[in-house]
């Protein structure tokens, strides 16, 4: 992107666009056009949440209505049918790629469409309880792979970085550039930053257990160098995962419908930055369908975030 610094500056920007004050609908946005030419309105986060709360309330109301109707007809089948109706209601709501999946609600369900509820419960359908706690979700079948884990640990004693750099083979120390020793071990292949206060950062592991093992090995090395190192407060600070949905994504469309969460600046970065609120994960979505998820403290957050984003991405699959 460095070469783009030399892009035409004056020639491009100074000519006044014709009819600048009368914005037309842009040709290239496949989705609904953004409200053009209006005074800028900063986002009110409370507004978006209240809209979603309303949607949830509407969903619940519809579920209740459906349940009441069914219970009037048949008692026993009502229990099963109501669950299926509410589940399918959520399916039709969730299937539209435009509702932002803020809360970790149920994703697409495999319940039959409304209007095809069986009159008698078939032996295959389980007698699920009325409250749809965890309906069967149609998972994407793709599992994000963990690529990097960052963890910290406190060795509990002051360290002399010069000694460590002198007596360890795998250490580098350049106090003018950075105030820590950079140490590397081969198995698991990781890098550690060891500070004179005794705190250590371990990066590069592919799983939580590997990160813990690597941190322990670094602590052992420091121990063998003569310091009374302990292993206190080991904590995973960040986890990065990546996966591929295997279809191209219209990033311009995604930023239009999910503008509160997305940031897409092709002049700066080719990917779209999606800041999911629940779970609090940042996703980098690229046009090739590759997704990078970061900011997680536990593995489940990465999986949850991907399950939340997958239906949204599928919604943009067939757009020209």
């Amino acid at each position: 992107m460095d070469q783009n610094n030399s892009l035409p500056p004056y020639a491009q920007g100074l000519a006044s666009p014709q009819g600048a004050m009368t914005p037309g609908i842009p040709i290239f946005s496949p989705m609904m056009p953004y409200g053009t030419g209006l005074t800028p309105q900063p986002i009110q986060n409370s507004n978006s949440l209240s809209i979603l709360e309303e949607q949830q309330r509407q969903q619940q109301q519809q579920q209740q209505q459906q349940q009441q109707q069914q219970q009037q007809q048949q008692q026993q089948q009502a229990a099963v049918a109501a669950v299926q109706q509410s589940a399918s209601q959520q399916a039709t709501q969730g299937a539209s790629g435009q509702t932002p999946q803020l809360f970790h609600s149920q994703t697409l369900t495999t319940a039959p469409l409304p209007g095809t509820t069986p009159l008698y419960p078939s032996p295959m359908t389980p007698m699920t309880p009325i409250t749809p706690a965890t309906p069967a979700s149609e998972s994407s079948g793709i599992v994000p792979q963990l690529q990097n884990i960052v963890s910290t640990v406190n060795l509990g004693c002051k360290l002399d970085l010069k000694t460590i750099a002198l007596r360890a083979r795998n250490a580098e120390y350049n106090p003018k550039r950075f105030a820590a020793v950079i140490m590397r071990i081969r198995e698991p292949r990781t890098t550690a930053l060891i500070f004179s206060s005794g705190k250590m950062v371990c990066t590069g592991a592919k799983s939580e257990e590997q990160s813990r093992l690597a941190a322990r090995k670094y602590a052992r090395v420091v121990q063998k160098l003569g310091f009374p190192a302990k292993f206190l407060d080991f904590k995973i600070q960040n986890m990065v995962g990546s996966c591929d949905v295997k279809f191209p994504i219209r990033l311009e469309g995604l930023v239009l419908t999910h503008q509160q969460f997305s940031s897409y600046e092709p002049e700066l970065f080719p990917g779209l930055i999606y800041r999911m609120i629940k779970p609090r994960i940042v996703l980098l979505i690229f046009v090739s369908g590759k997704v990078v998820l970061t900011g997680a403290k536990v593995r489940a957050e990465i999986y949850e975030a991907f399950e939340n984003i997958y239906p949204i991405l599928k919604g943009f699959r067939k757009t020209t």
Partner: protein
Amino acid sequence: MPGGGRCPGCGSSELVEDSHYSQSQLVCSDCGCVVTEGVLTTTFTDEGNLREVTYSRSTGKNEQVSRSQQRGLCRVRDLCRVLQLPPAFEDTAVAYYQQAYQHSGIRAARLQKKEVLVGCCVLITCRQRNWPLTMGTICTLLYADLDVFSGTYMQMVKLLGLDVPSLCLVDLVKTYCSSFKLFEASPSVPAKYVEDKDKMLSRTLQLVELADETWLVTGRHPLPVITAATFLAWQSLRPSDRLPCSLARFCKLANVDLPYPASSRLQELLAVLLRMAEQLAWLQVLKLDKRSVVKHIGDLLQHRHTLVRKAFRDGTAEMDTQEKELQGQEQGQGQGQGPSEEDVGSSPSDLPAGKRPASPALLLPPCMLKPPKRVCPTPPVSTVTGDENISDSEIEQYLRTPQEVRDFQRAQAAGQAAMNVPNPP
């Protein structure tokens, strides 16, 4: 000059604006008393005489505005004027700068960041009013680094919670194309290279729309695509004279910088056009290549919607169903088209099976069509628990032997000594 002031000496109101050399003075015409003496020695009494006072001694309501903020606001206004923006933009940009300055993180930032912040405010204002301004332009005007600009811009958008729409491609095409100096003959631009602005603009817009449809715009910087499209549009309007001209020469003629990715965008666009040309039977027999397809861009653009649908298939669809559907489509189109599509429609249905148009290619972004640079092997499932025993020998391999330590210390000392030896006089 009647201004309501009175001479403190004689009380007359006959004050005259006079200047002593270059210093402006207010003098009483009756007694000659100098009432005020310009900005160098103003005091509160001067202000009482309704003369101008230095800002720092005034009783202005904006005492909260610091010097650096004033400078920034002034810069915002200057930048808006340099870019010749409508007057309404200036006020919005100034408001954004003031809003940003409320945050302590911005107030305590370095001057470099504050200068870049000026550009961010102007950019956000332009984006929200659909004025096509690229970040490259602003960075060049501010002599700023794009990395610094991008960091400050993202921070500002997040801090103020702003909703910034995407760059409007149509407007960008119009302004950018208008800046090409090809619409009038000049000593550097021969007559055969001069082109009509409207024709070039409309053709460029069609080409950019085609690029957007075929995944050449998503995820990329918009400007190189537009440069490539403008070049193709210009070439295709008079191919016989303009085919020998290269992209670099074209940009030099038009007095526009050539962005580095433009040549690869050009190749991608030509590849798309070639695929579309394969669907037209009379072009199929010509066996076009990347140079000769330029002559037929006009025809290809006229039928671009149909051709794209026929030439490409959805990257995720099944191959069998799509091919059958396309064959059916061709025959159906051969009969049901209007006069403009006659030549397109009639030929495919008459051709024997051997001369059928090429089977559709995948409509995917170029990054998905290229083979992966390196195949990432799936990592083996690790059975590490994190609590294994760590053998001493494994740790020993990371420690230096005493001999190594001595050697290393000696080498370090020698290196230090070599550095400390003073240069001979």
